[in-house]
């Protein structure tokens, strides 16, 4: 079962025992899941169950070396889709992708990696 990683996260974040929810109060940072992929095409889905008005999310894919003390997509190792304005980010550059997403939206994240030679 894919959970939030116990160790692969910004250390100041507090991971709940169910390892399905995480909270933080020290600015924007990231947590990765327990499962990674290394080649081929992979896809996961996220259902936004609740999104308080002044909250925001950035969800996506990030390589091992991504800086977890910032949102995913701030450096060259990550790609994310933001709830606000539906912008996609890579290397801290935002590009328009869709309208913003919010509660009850179901998002899909596909990554296509080369097959090993």
């Amino acid at each position, binding site marked *: 079962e894919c959970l939030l990683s116990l160790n692969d996260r910004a250390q*100041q974040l507090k991971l709940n025992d169910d390892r399905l929810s995480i909270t933080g109060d*020290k*600015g924007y940072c990231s947590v990765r899941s327990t499962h990674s992929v290394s080649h081929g095409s992979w896809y996961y889905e996220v259902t936004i169950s609740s999104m308080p008005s002044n909250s925001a999310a950035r969800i996506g894919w990030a390589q091992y070396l991504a*800086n977890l*003390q*910032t949102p995913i997509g701030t450096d060259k190792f990550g790609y994310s889709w933001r709830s606000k304005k539906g912008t996609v980010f890579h290397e801290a550059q935002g590009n328009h992708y869709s309208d913003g997403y919010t509660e009850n939206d179901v998002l899909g994240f596909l990554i296509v990696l080369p097959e090993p030679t």
Partner: protein
Amino acid sequence: DVEFADHFKFSQLKLRKKRLRYAKSDIHGWGLFACEAIAAEDMVIEYVGETIRQTVADIREKEYEVEGIDSNYMFRIDSETIVDATKCGNLARFINHSCDPNCYAKIIPVESQKKIVIYSKRDIRLGEEITYDYKFPIEEQKIPCRCGSQTCRGSLN
């Protein structure tokens, strides 16, 4: 009780904040000067500013450089937190570095926060410039030190 003691101690310290003023300094641009004699091991002032995370400080350092603003007004509290007095702070931001300083900085925990408090190392005369040893990180690009003390290390970094 410990929290109360800490808070009480700090509020006492606040009362003992000294009368200071900033003026032209021989060491570097502007400096902070004592407007009253200060006994050794007494509280001089708290170094106040915006508390930010290391990641935000890294970005601001670059932004200040681009804006041409001196980025020496950042003071590390611990491995995650920095006090940035560049755009908001108090007189403590004017304290210059000296290799033979008359003050030292101490991080004291008050409730859930940590505060940077400047204490006098020795008696300080009326009108004397307040200085402490900044302990800048060692860098390639050297910045000359003009503290003028006997034991001057020649460069800040």
